[in-house]
């Protein structure tokens, strides 16, 4: 299998102490740490290859363009896409979703139209649609949860109407780690002929994703959650939308010709990438993808599942712990609370032991309302986490529970 020790050695930040204790970083759902290759790829670009791209005739500009376009190809290949023009560089998942929402609002979405979301959604996959709905008289319909906090696919089907214009749904719940049934989504969206957007922010870091097979209309994710740099992400567009999605933003680099009266736009990805892109970010992102592919997405998933199952089992044995959406089929994330205690207190004390967890609503307030809590404690794993860290965390969690009582 994979040699976690060797992997850990590649992450400089894991070698350091926090509050005098070795860092146990369980906040990967918020952002992952970066391996040395990624940090170096960014540094080396600035040290040896930095230049603006696309329009230059000089050597540095040509080489930077080649690196940038090669990064697009690497990412396309990772997601099993043949035409790399379908990969648009953005500044992250939130930016990508906004681009789709703003684009669709121009022609595709009309007053009275409906969009189906799930109870799981991150604010970034709610607010852009809400902004549209409030301004244009649109309606957001929400897939409810079953008792076990999984999505209610029967209720889901009942939400479809002639007015349904989009299903925008997360692949993995960032709060619960539960995985959406893509088979079901594909089946229903095809049956009702409705486009769907898949929010891959929490799936892309953890599992193999074959967009050629899933066939979403839109797919989005963030580099910073995938061992890559901040400020970078992608928007994948299906062939159909690549040619037809109206532009939300525009500017230099997207055009063939411009006069003050009229602009003829370029084709492919460029049309959607106005201004100087985050060149170092794209290169760093591709390097992170290569890092993941070298580990192997299936190995990565297996290792993290192992950690999740181990941690869940141990947490279940602590009487004071309440787990949310516990399940064997998860993508690296566990949410829980200590009964009667505020998650803030639990997180604050764990931090004193060097354990970084996330507490609060995780940008999923509607899900919190549904669970009937203010917030949860969330631990989320990456490939560099170990069973020993999980055991250390469980030990200290017990200590924290005693302290708070």
């Amino acid at each position: 299998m994979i040699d976690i020790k060797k992997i850990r050695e590649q992450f400089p930040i894991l070698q350091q102490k926090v509050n005098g204790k070795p860092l146990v970083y369980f906040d990967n759902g918020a952002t992952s740490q970066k391996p040395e290759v990624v940090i170096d790829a960014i540094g080396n670009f600035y040290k040896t290859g930095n230049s603006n791209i696309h329009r230059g005739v000089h050597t540095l500009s040509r080489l930077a363009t080649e690196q940038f376009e090669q990064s697009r190809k690497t990412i396309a290949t990772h997601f099993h896409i043949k035409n790399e023009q379908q990969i648009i560089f953005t500044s992250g998942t939130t930016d990508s979703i906004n681009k789709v929402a703003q684009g669709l609002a121009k022609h595709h979405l009309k007053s009275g139209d409906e969009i189906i979301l799930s109870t799981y959604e991150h604010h970034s996959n709610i607010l852009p649609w809400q902004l549209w709905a409030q301004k244009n008289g649109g309606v957001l319909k929400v897939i409810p949860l079953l008792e076990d906090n999984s999505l209610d696919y029967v209720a889901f089907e009942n939400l479809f109407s002639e007015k349904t214009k989009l299903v925008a749904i997360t692949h993995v719940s960032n709060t619960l780690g539960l995985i959406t049934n893509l088979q079901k989504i594909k089946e229903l969206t095809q049956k009702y002929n409705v486009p769907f957007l898949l929010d891959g922010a929490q799936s892309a870091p953890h599992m193999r994703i074959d967009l050629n097979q899933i066939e979403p209309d839109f797919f989005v994710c963030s580099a910073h959650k995938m061992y890559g740099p901040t400020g970078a992400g992608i928007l994948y567009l299906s062939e159909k939308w690549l040619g037809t999605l109206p532009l939300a933003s525009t500017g230099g680099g997207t055009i063939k010709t411009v006069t003050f009266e009229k602009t003829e736009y370029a084709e492919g990805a460029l049309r959607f990438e106005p201004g100087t892109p985050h060149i170092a970010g794209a290169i760093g992102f591709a390097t992170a993808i290569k890092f993941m592919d070298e580990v192997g997405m299936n190995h990565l998933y297996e290792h993290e599942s192992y950690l999740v199952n181990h941690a869940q089992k141990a947490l279940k044995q602590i009487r004071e712990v309440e787990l949310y959406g516990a399940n064997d089929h998860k993508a690296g994330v566990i949410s829980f609370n200590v009964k009667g205690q505020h998650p803030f207190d639990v997180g604050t004390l764990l931090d004193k032991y060097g354990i970084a967890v996330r507490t609060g609503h995780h940008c999923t307030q509607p899900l919190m309302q549904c669970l009937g809590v203010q917030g949860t404690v969330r631990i989320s794993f990456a490939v560099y986490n170990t069973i020993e860290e999980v055991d250390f965390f469980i030990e200290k969690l017990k200590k924290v529970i005693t302290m708070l009582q």
Partner: protein
Amino acid sequence: MKIEDVEKEILEEFEFFGDDWEAKYEHLIDLGKSLPLIEAQFKTEENIIQGCQSRVWLNSELKDGKMIFTADSDAIITKGMVALMIRVLSGQKPEDIVNAKMDFVDKIGLKEHLSPTRANGLVSMINRMKKEAILNIEK
């Protein structure tokens, strides 16, 4: 007692724990538990100080030229911190509150709770306490 004297008292209290953060936090938690709760009628939307995570309710009134603060929080560690703030500032003259440096928090090694991360409402709470004090000077 003057503000500096209360601060000195707290300092001494915490010096006792040295580097033992567990003992320090246990003390903080105890302080939180001992905080005289705010009266239910004051736990209003208006009195809430929204941190991103833990919430703080603060009520203030002027009594005999001195500010009386009562407060509560839904998180016990925040509540412990709030208890310290109240111990230092409640019962003091508005002028003194406005000028209070509150650097004892740093000295007892709890500075992190006054970072601007929004995660707790403490910075906002101190600001609110000072604002109330200012309003009561101007009166």
